[in-house]
């Protein structure tokens, strides 16, 4: 998978909307290389100081598009993502919640063929600390993100914010954050994100935030067992009842599938420290670094 860097040329799909505008300004202030936006109805105008195009394909005629970030309603996601793939984007961050799963699968099939990384849907985005961010994480808040050597993965944006704040408060810092999203079928899995951060220069430890539902944490555990870097994990939903979608479409225990116990035991067997509460992350990192 691809991680966004400072020199990447980024297009914001849906730049002219209220959220698109607010977060484009925040991304620009932080240093994200936003070179344009997309809104077919406002093509030819300028918004947030950058040109608005009819499509990513059009934008790509004026220079390479490395990444896009989408502020697009659920039923528009498929067409927008296919446009970004066709426009040659290597990385597409889809923030949208409630995208029909068959649309997501269609986009995944097209992305796989072109080697495009899809992050999300239903993610808060990614942060490469001190370089750029894509989405709506508070990368600019110094109490939450300080530069350092921890790589953070999360299915949830709100919980990631808390985890990053705890890491920062404990005196550590973050190299990169990958929000992968809360849907049942997503482009970048826990395993994909773990491998990418393991190979990302400057990452010396991992904090992983999972949830009940699915089998992504179990799949990531197999790779975690091969890693030397310390890993601390928190799995949300231990107190959740079975058979209910806990806010995220993917966070549901069905029978004995996707349970907290299954994820905890798989991760612990792989040598991962599983936290009882997110506030234990600082101590776990301290112990992990001391042991390494």
């Amino acid at each position, binding site marked *: 998978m691809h991680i966004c860097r400072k020199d990447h040329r980024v297009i914001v799909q849906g730049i002219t909307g209220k*959220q698109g505008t607010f977060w484009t300004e925040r991304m620009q202030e932080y240093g994200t290389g936003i070179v344009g936006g997309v809104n077919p109805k406002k093509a030819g105008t300028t918004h947030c100081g950058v040109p608005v195009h009819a499509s990513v394909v059009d934008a790509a005629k004026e220079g390479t598009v490395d990444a896009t970030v989408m502020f697009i309603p*659920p*039923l528009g996601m498929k067409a927008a993502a296919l446009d970004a793939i066709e426009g040659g984007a290597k990385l597409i961050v889809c923030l949208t*919640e*409630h995208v*029909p*799963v*068959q649309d*997501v*699968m*269609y986009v*995944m*099939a*097209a992305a*796989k063929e072109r080697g495009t990384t899809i992050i999300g849907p239903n993610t*808060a985005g990614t942060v490469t600390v001190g370089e750029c961010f894509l989405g*709506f*994480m*508070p990368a600019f*808040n110094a*109490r*939450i993100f300080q530069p350092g050597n921890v790589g953070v993965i*999360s*299915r*949830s*944006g*709100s*919980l*990631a*914010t*808390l985890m990053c*704040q*705890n890491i920062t*408060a404990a005196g550590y810092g973050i190299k990169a954050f990958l929000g992968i999203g*809360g849907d*049942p*079928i997503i*482009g970048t899995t826990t395993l994909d994100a773990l491998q990418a951060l393991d190979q990302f220069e400057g990452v010396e430890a991992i904090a992983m*935030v999972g*949830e*009940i539902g*699915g*089998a992504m944490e179990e799949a990531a555990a197999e790779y975690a067992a091969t890693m030397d870097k310390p890993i601390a994990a*928190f799995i*949300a*939903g*231990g*107190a*959740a*009842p079975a058979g*209910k979608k*806990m*806010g*995220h*479409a993917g*966070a549901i225990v069905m*029978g004995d599938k996707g349970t907290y116990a299954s994820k905890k035991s798989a991760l612990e067997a792989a040598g991962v420290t599983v936290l009882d*509460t*997110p*506030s234990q992350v600082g101590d776990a990192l301290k112990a992990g670094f001391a042991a390494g």
Partner: protein
Amino acid sequence: MNFEEYAAKPVLAAAGIAVPASRLAQTPDEAKAAAEAIGPCVVKAQVPTGKRGKAGGIQLADTPDQARAHAAKIIGMEIGGHTVEKVLVEAKSDIAREFYAAILNDPETKGPMVMFSTEGGMDIEEIAAETPEKLRKTPVDIRKGLSLEAARAMLDGLDLDGAEDRVAEVLVKLYAAYRTNDAELLEINPLIVTGSGDVMALDCKFVMDDSGIKRQPDLAPKGTPDKLSALEVMGEGHGIKYIELEGDVVVLANGAGLTMTTMDVVRHYGGRPANFCEIGGEAYTKGKAALEMVLAKPGVKSLVVNFCGAFARCDVMMGGLLEAWDEVNPDIPVFFSIAGTGDEEAIAMLKEKLDMDPLPNMDAACKAAADAARAGG
């Protein structure tokens, strides 16, 4: 969203898959009348759950009077927590073979998966556990769809008593129905071959992707929504995700992950969460409605408010809460934890309006709420 058998089978029929003649009945007399029109029949409880047969909810009737008697017993029965309100009276079939066929959204391949087994009648978990060698799986490239050749190929080597081509056609039609109707699961179990060689769907399970409901305006109203408590219905009306739980520590947080975690941490400190209630995402401006709702549950003893702003701003959520404060007038101890986007403004608002400070972190707030609930006990 689940569709009961009577609402799911028309989806198959519309795609050209044969189903037995049937009529829906809500009273024993209606069941009798249906049986008079249909002949020898099966009376089947309609509930959004499996294991109807084992619970006694499916009975054979040779005569209209038998159908009436069975319906009288089945209507009102409790199956898997659901009260039976209607039965499907369906023509009895001459079953020679029973197969299993399904299309589902597969997280591993991130695409549709076609499943077929010669062992119909059992549920898929039993088939996978007991006769995995008989379960065939074929992933589909959703951009291309399922071809008749691919469907025929997945049946290669199976003895279907000469029905191979007709079964392959059913798989192709099933796939089309799955795509047209935003299914996350469309299952025929059993798919039967009759004594005269016809291939028919005897039962159907259809789960629609909740995110597809908006673009299925004709079909979606025929589904059976989850049973919700009165407060959960209120939450849905406000666009707030609210799930009622058994405890007494009220949880109010933003974002699904953080809300679940707040519940987990309350429990870690010995408290019992009363609810899941999240006002993140698009609902982050709905602090007022959320506060009214979470406090409406009887017997609650403390409240923990946990905001960690990202997209949802702490000051906006706090504004909504404080607006409702005087009206709702919470008479239980309240503990705040506030961090992230808009946190400084939110903390200042809390100080000004209620002369309160947040606790230093969520652990402290959850622990204080758990302790207060026990003390109030």
